């Protein structure tokens, strides 16, 4: 970009970029483990945590009904120590993740702007973490208030963010340390 390339950065800048990318990678791994243990990584697990709770009794069929009762087996009660994300927690999660992930996507993108790849490819890759973040958080709201089947968007969003991070990191690290310097 404007004659500046990752491969021509001074050593201190290369170290900064590398450590930032590695640090974000570690954070992303920790977030992955946290998501898998607290919620799960399948659309079904996400749906179970995010979708609105539906009645188990005949109240589901008759919305105006004031009560309902039915016999259940213990197997019908969740045995998983999973988090059920209710609306106030969704609000809290949204505001922190939208700020945090967008800032991370911005910093990743800032580094990647100086990568030596074709402009069209750069445009697509730099957009991935942003789009992933919006799909991820937007998918949570859509799962809760539009349709539980949209939980797949949360998985897709997380995957896009991870894909964007991986591409940016691999290309940036290659440029930083392996690409031969070209004099402008």
């Amino acid at each position, binding site marked *: 970009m404007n004659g500046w390339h990752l491969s021509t950065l001074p050593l201190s800048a290369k170290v900064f970029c590398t450590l930032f990318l590695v640090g974000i990678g570690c954070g992303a791994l920790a977030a992955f483990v946290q998501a898998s243990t*607290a919620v799960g990584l399948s659309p079904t697990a996400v749906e179970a945590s995010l979708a609105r709770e539906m009645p188990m009794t005949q109240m589901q069929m008759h919305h105006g009904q004031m009560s309902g009762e*039915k016999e259940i087996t213990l197997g019908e009660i969740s045995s998983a120590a999973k988090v059920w994300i209710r609306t106030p927690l969704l609000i809290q999660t949204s505001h*922190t993740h939208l700020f945090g992930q967008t*800032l991370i996507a911005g910093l990743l993108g*800032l580094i990647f702007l100086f990568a030596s790849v074709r402009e069209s490819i750069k445009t697509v890759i730099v957009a991935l973490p942003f789009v992933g973040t919006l799909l991820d958080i937007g998918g949570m709201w859509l799962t809760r208030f539009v349709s539980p089947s949209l939980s797949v968007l949360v998985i897709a969003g997380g995957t896009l963010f991870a894909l964007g991070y991986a591409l940016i990191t691999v290309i940036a690290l290659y440029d930083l340390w392996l690409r031969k310097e070209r004099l402008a």
Partner: protein
Amino acid sequence: MKIPCRLLAAALVSLCLVAPARAHITPPVVLVSDRDAVVSLLAGARRFFVREVRLTAAEKQAIRQQTGWTPEDDFYRFYIGRDDQGRVVAATVFLTEFTIHGPVRVAVALGPDGKIKGATVVELTEETYPWVKPLLDRNFTREYVGRDARGTFAVSAGGGESMAQFYGQVVASLIQRAAALYETGVIKRGDAA
């Protein structure tokens, strides 16, 4: 190298902004699954039922006057345990309070007379857990056993303005709300048998 250095300085400042945003996230701590809580609190039950209750405006108002809390959920679910003869052993309901430090979720067991038979804190957050743990270690919810919704639900957790005191009171309030919900939504409707 002026341009990249300025950009990197901007990146550093942005990094500093990221940290506090991430610090707000407090991962949940699930202490016990719903099934384990139901099994434990409905000990002695041979058959299990789900009773779901939608409150009328008048019932919500009655609960608000009794506890200061207005029920807002579309419906409330009670897990009811019965013996072999079909008599109610106890009912369990899960209630949550959303605090600035994350949710506090409690399972409360109530007898057919509306009196509290037990309560278990099922979910906290990493931030709130250390504050509540001393109370959990002394099994403080036992103090409310035998009380109904009109009982006193004070907490003694070192007093003052401590976080333990605050969260102890949150748990105690949830237990009282559960009792009021069962009394209004089940007993007063004549559905406790």
